[in-house]
């Protein structure tokens, strides 16, 4: 299973009206690894991430061509239930988007919409998810206080707990640390390291050190093209393409 390919994208193209945001992206994302997507703003890395749980469809005037396979099944197939897909592929956003409700209700939100009503079962899921997100020790006795009162770093870990509560296989993270202070960021990175034992993680980041620290594979995007994709060590130490080298050495971007 070490080299099982969890997500495979082929010829992925995305257009916003006339603007082509992605050009024929091919990528193999390995199971139980962290894959980082780096590149300057507007390079298409977030757009690519959002093709993996079909979130681009929410934006009016978006056209999507190409294929994404999750465990070999094409997720853009007409028969695929997007709700079930998103249950398997969770997502964490840039801004910690906790719902305006209690900590408990935030974590229980996913299980509840998927039909779990039993209180003790919900309690169990909430506890397990908060523990997995390293929040239980800080928040375990404050489950009923409003989530909005927590710090930014805690909120972001709560969002991760909320994703874990629906028991996904893949977690997509769109610049999850960009609004956090250095201590919260390092806690988050530590958490990502623990999560990859059980989940496949794809993370978009502006921060190249972060990509180097947390990821096993890295893809470098520029102007809607995937310029280079390789093991993180290889990409940072021996970039094959000149543009990659220029970017990681800080010559542009």
């Amino acid at each position, binding site marked *: 299973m070490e080299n099982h390919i969890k997500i495979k994208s082929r010829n992925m193209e995305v257009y916003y009206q006339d603007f082509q945001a992605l050009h024929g992206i091919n990528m193999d994302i390995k199971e139980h690894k962290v894959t980082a997507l780096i590149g300057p703003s507007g390079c298409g890395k977030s757009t690519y991430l959002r093709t993996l*749980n079909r*979130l681009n469809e*929410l934006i*009016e005037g978006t056209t999507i061509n190409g294929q994404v396979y999750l465990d070999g099944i094409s997720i853009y197939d007409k028969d695929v239930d997007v*709700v*079930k*897909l*998103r*249950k398997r592929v*969770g*997502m964490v*956003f840039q*801004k910690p*988007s906790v*719902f*305006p*409700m209690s900590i408990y209700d935030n974590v229980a*939100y*996913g299980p*509840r*919409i*998927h039909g779990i009503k039993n209180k003790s079962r919900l309690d169990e899921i909430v506890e397990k998810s908060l523990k997995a997100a390293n929040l239980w020790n800080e928040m375990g006795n404050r489950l009923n206080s*409003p989530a*909005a009162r927590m710090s930014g770093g805690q909120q972001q870990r709560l*969002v991760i707990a*909320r*994703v874990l509560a*629906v028991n996904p296989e893949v977690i997509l993270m769109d610049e999850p640390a960009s609004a956090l202070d250095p201590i919260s960021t390092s806690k988050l990175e530590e958490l990502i390291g623990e999560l990859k034992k059980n989940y496949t993680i794809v993370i978009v980041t502006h921060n190249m050190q972060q990509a180097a620290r947390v990821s096993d594979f890295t893809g470098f995007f520029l102007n809607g093209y995937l310029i280079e994709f390789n093991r993180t060590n290889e990409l940072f130490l021996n970039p094959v393409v000149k543009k990659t080298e220029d970017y990681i050495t800080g010559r542009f971007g």
Partner: protein
Amino acid sequence: MEKIVEIDMIKSKKYKDKAGFRKRNNAMLKNINAEKLIETILLLSAAAFILVIVLITLFIFAKGVPLVMQVGIDDFLFNSDWRPMKGAFGIWAMFVGSLTVTFSSMLWAVPLGIITAVFMAEIAPPVIGRWLGRLIELLAGIPSVVYGFIGLIVIVPFIREVLGGNGLSVLAGAIILGIMILPTIINIARDAIMAVPQEYKESSLALGATHYQTIARVIIPAARSGIITAVVLGMGRAIGETMAVVMVTGNSTVIPENILSPVRTMTSNIVLEMGYAAGDHQAALFATGMVLFIFIVCLNLMVTISAKAGRK
């Protein structure tokens, strides 16, 4: 003050050129004067406005309070004997009338308004949402006498023929008032729903919620305080509305037995009798206005409180 600054500046030898420094210093002073002038104008405008409000309020209370004291709060509010020519000033029937017409209009306008707002903000394609918005603005722009006229020509005969009675009724008032408060409810509720951060919606969908689950469990709860504001402001509009209500409700000063009975509201009472009222009678009408005033102030307080609760 400026002298000291000037000397300090010269001492510091930054400004050896004294004339140049004066020039700059004067330019600085001029700006400060302009700011002062603008601030004063703004302050005076605000003060004038507040003065007008305070004077009107004082006037209403000065006219109304002595009458209420004379009649007794109990007899004024909770007695439904209104025979102003004979010195009987009990507004209970009108008080109940206002509440009955208002609540029965809200009974259908609030759910319809909120559902329409959700549809416009979340479900309709943006083009249709925009057109609906314009249509609703149009609805808000129709003068209330025109609504009353339509009610009198269309709704009152319809009720008379289909449901019985003479048609001038609580029901006719509730239908017309409901239509009139819909734009208020829809616009404010829609704005509240649209102000819910996009991240909430995306997060919910990304957790595998359907669009309807997202609306019911995240978007509406997050917009709750705005929706309450919409309802309360709609209610304030309904309580205060006069013209259209006078035209369709029959205006008899008895407590309505059912929705087909005629009814008189507090606002109707003022507009119907102010033309010939004098002395205590006139004071009693101002006292009726005072009750309305207090009622609407309470509603506005509720809006403020719910807005504060929403910000937590």
